[in-house]
């Protein structure tokens, strides 16, 4: 085995595994990139490292200088990954977190030494973004890396995730990933379109429309700036909504191929199956999809063990993307 100088050297270069046993068609291969293998446990390790590296390159953050504070809105994984990177690089991180994320995420943030600022759960990720924007304006000394607008977010995927996928699966025809900040889709999508123009890029969305009634106002819908900056509408070929029940069902089905994955990965897998179902019987396709993180942080949702109706109701109230 290789010997590494730092845990940060373990970020990226994740394995891809064939999960075609779940494919609805023998002509459609499905491969899953296991981002849970990153040291802080998710695809966001790539983003966090890229954000901090870029800030250090630009002189916004200076290693070794005391009392440097970062603030970032995150429903979980970015905060956790940033907390790990900040711990190693000596920065203090404040994470603005909706109050309704799973308790494991809070525990992890605290484990890495981050400070948590609660935002209203009913306002979801958008509420966390708004509060972080306001706090950063009120505290101009705090460094706000803002993953939703920072080009270092998609750049992490353009320079690492995308090339790794093409190296390992040169026959790729479709890439299916979740749409949160849009960083994965914009970075990988742009890289793949440049090198394999025929590859189709599919986005999977959580059903924000369902969370809206009584929970948050549709007026507060939010298009990440990096989606606009990267001409997301032109880059994507298809965008599908996956509902909580399908997400849970496919999170469970992933265990059939030995994958204990987080709920967003179930949603993305469900999107990959929808994609596979559009391939006509006389065509061949190779779909690459992303397992964003492992299932540990979601055990408290009962996703694998409880009655699915109860889990679906619970999943509507917590943020899992």
């Amino acid at each position, binding site marked *: 085995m290789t010997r590494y100088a730092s845990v940060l050297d373990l970020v990226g270069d994740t394995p891809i595994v064939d999960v075609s046993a779940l494919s609805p068609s023998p002509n459609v291969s499905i491969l899953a990139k296991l981002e849970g293998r990153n040291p802080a446990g998710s695809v966001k390790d790539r983003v966090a490292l890229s954000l901090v590296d870029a800030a250090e390159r630009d002189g916004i953050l200076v290693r070794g200088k005391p009392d440097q504070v970062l603030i970032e809105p995150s429903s979980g994984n970015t905060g956790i990954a940033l907390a790990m990177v900040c711990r190693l690089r000596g920065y203090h991180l404040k994470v603005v977190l909706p109050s309704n994320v799973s308790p494991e995420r809070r525990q992890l943030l605290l484990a890495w030494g981050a400070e948590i600022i609660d935002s209203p759960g009913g306002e979801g990720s958008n509420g966390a*973004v708004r509060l972080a*924007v306001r706090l950063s304006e009120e505290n101009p000394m705090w460094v706000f890396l803002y993953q*939703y*607008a920072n080009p270092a977010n998609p750049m992490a995927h353009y320079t690492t995730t995308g090339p790794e996928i093409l190296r390992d699966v040169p026959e790729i025809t479709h890439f299916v990933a979740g749409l949160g900040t849009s960083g994965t889709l914009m970075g990988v999508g742009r890289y793949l379109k440049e090198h394999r123009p025929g590859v189709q890029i599919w*986005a999977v*969305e959580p*059903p*924000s*429309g369902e969370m*809206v*009634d009584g929970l948050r*106002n*549709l*007026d*507060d*819908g*939010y*298009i*990440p*700036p990096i989606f*606009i900056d990267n001409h997301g*509408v032109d880059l*994507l*070929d*298809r*965008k*599908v*909504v*996956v*509902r909580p029940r399908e997400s849970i069902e496919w999170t469970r089905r992933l265990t059939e191929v030995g994958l204990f994955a987080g709920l967003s990965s179930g949603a993305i897998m469900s999107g990959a199956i929808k994609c596979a179902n559009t391939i006509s019987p006389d065509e061949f396709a190779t779909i690459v999809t992303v397992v964003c993180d492992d299932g540990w942080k979601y055990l408290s949702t009962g996703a694998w063990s409880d009655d699915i109706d109860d889990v679906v109701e619970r999943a509507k109230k917590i943020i899992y993307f």
Partner: protein
Amino acid sequence: MTASVRIPTVLRAALGGDASVSVEGSTIGEVLEKLTAQHPSVKGQLLNDDGTLHRFLNVYVNDDDVRYLGGVDAPVANGDEITLLPAVAGGDR
């Protein structure tokens, strides 16, 4: 073709108050034209002057975003469920 259109909270009052309405049309454009025929003030929030989809409106047919299926020309089949979801841009920061 009759499709069921789910009306988001923000547009509900302006479109008569129902959470869901049945509208006839064979394309998304036809459905939106018919939906707003009685409520012209809302039309500008859904469609541009040239009849294309407003940039900050997401429309889904059975959970598939129509922007990637031909926009207003996306076909509508009998019994399809259409969801309107306005999004406000955050693109200036």
